[in-house]
């Protein structure tokens, strides 16, 4: 029997108690999304990997998981990009600098950057999926010697919903970055590419033997992005994906985030594709 025996509670951790952090800055990204800069007490470092997340809480409202959007190379503070969709995020949208919020984490398995080192990095981000991917993008940009080329495919529903527009502009102008963006439906003055995100993939210039790719977006996107990548010859072993599931604890206890037998908050949210290929509920 592989059941682990009862361990001493003194050695067990307080899993559910937050640290009270402070919102330092609030920047509206779009109608729905806001970027928060958060500082831990005493200037402590969060110490995260790109792709990891924290649980954010407001007392009396609740707690929810959010990806860390800033790169670990940025010190002292970290950033969260949050879309307004419900109870907690509604109230967060009204918060201003100085407000105390509870933070637990960082949680989960982020991007295994060691396995991306020395390779071209392809990021495929749909909609709010850019929020966690931005952490990796800036990480790569801050350590240019460690990685090969950076290729970014970003898809948004419309040009009005594009996130981080000032940074997008910087990426576009960076000669070391192949930055592509598309919108499902452009406004009349949109001059860029129109179409779903998968339409960007056939036109990419890829070095298939030296590539690591990470995908993050809305649930419907994964299947199609995978098909597009596979048809370009991207190897399964070179694909990672960041998944979202409902979660309540972030520490592998509450059961909500299970995909078959796997806990997204423990084994994910960033999965190596070969690991989850066999999980029927994953994609």
């Amino acid at each position: 029997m592989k059941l682990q025996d009862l361990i001493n509670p003194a050695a067990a951790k307080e899993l559910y108690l937050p640290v009270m952090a402070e919102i330092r800055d609030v920047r509206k990204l779009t109608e729905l999304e806001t970027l928060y800069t958060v500082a831990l007490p005493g200037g402590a470092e969060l110490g995260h990997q790109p792709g990891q997340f924290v649980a954010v809480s407001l007392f009396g409202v609740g707690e929810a998981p959010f990806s860390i959007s800033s790169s670990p190379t940025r010190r002292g503070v970290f950033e969260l990009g949050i879309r307004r969709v419900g109870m907690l995020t509604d109230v967060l949208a009204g918060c201003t600098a100085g407000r105390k919020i509870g933070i637990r984490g960082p949680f989960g398995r982020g991007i295994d950057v060691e396995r991306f080192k020395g390779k071209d990095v392809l990021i495929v981000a749909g909609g709010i999926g850019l929020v966690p991917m931005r952490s990796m993008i800036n990480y790569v940009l801050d350590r240019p010697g460690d990685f090969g080329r950076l290729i970014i495919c970003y898809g948004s529903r419309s040009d009005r919903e594009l996130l981080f527009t000032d940074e997008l502009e910087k990426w576009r102008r960076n000669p070391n970055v192949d930055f592509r963006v598309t919108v499902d439906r452009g406004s009349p003055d949109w001059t860029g590419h129109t179409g779903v995100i998968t339409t960007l993939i056939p036109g990419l210039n890829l070095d298939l033997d030296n590539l690591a790719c990470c995908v993050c977006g809305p649930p419907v996107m994964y299947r199609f992005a995978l098909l597009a990548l596979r048809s370009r010859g991207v190897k399964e072993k070179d694909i990672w994906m960041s998944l979202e599931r409902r979660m309540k604890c972030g520490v592998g206890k509450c059961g909500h985030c299970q995909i078959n037998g796997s806990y997204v908050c423990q084994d994910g949210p960033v999965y190596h594709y070969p690991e989850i290929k066999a999980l029927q509920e994953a994609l």
Partner: protein
Amino acid sequence: MTRKPRVAIFDFTGCEGCELNQLNFEDQLLDILAHVDIVEWREAMDDRAGEYDIAFVEGSLSTPDCIKRIHDVRRRAKVLVALGTCAVTGGVNAVKNTRPIEEVREEVYGQDKYLFPTLPALPLSAVVKVDHNVRGCPMTQIEFLKVFTALVMGKRPIEPDYAVCVECKLRENECVLERGMICLGPVTRAGCDAHCPTVGQYCIGCRGLVSEPNIAGMEEILVDHGLSLDDARRRLQLYNANQLEGAK
């Protein structure tokens, strides 16, 4: 919050039990009053107000006059809360919708039936936008307090979307099916803390249905527990006539 929210309370076609239930918060009434200004409430006061932040509305809509008045309430309210099942689903009133309206009027008023105009009993949401619901017949006090504190704090209240059985289990009740009774708890939306089964009565479904009820399954359960299919449907209809209309 700089200013206390202005609250108004209105009643349409219903038994006013929900409003009475508000007056029955003896322990919390004074706390509630500390958070808000009650500016209009016909059952308890004379004042008539102009505009309000939160309107609590009881009852279903069943006359042309109701429809006119609810539009007026909606125009003047920032947030509109449907109070009690009559307001949320049409409630018991909607049972009359299952029979031809002329027949019903004739039965009650005979040759005088045209004296009093009537419409099918409608939930508020059939006519105006409803922001939040407090369900129950009478409205569930614990849920009212939850919605109320959420609104005072400026957050969106969440409505449970699981069955009464969940709360019944959390309280470790003996299931009334075990006592040889029937129960509508398995498809009825929770939020009452399984009040009726806790005191030995079956759940009569007064909080309306969960969002994706398996009605055929529920009917089969009722038949297995001794009702005819016809009786099973009637029992389910009591609070869900408007909702089941489409289903059949």
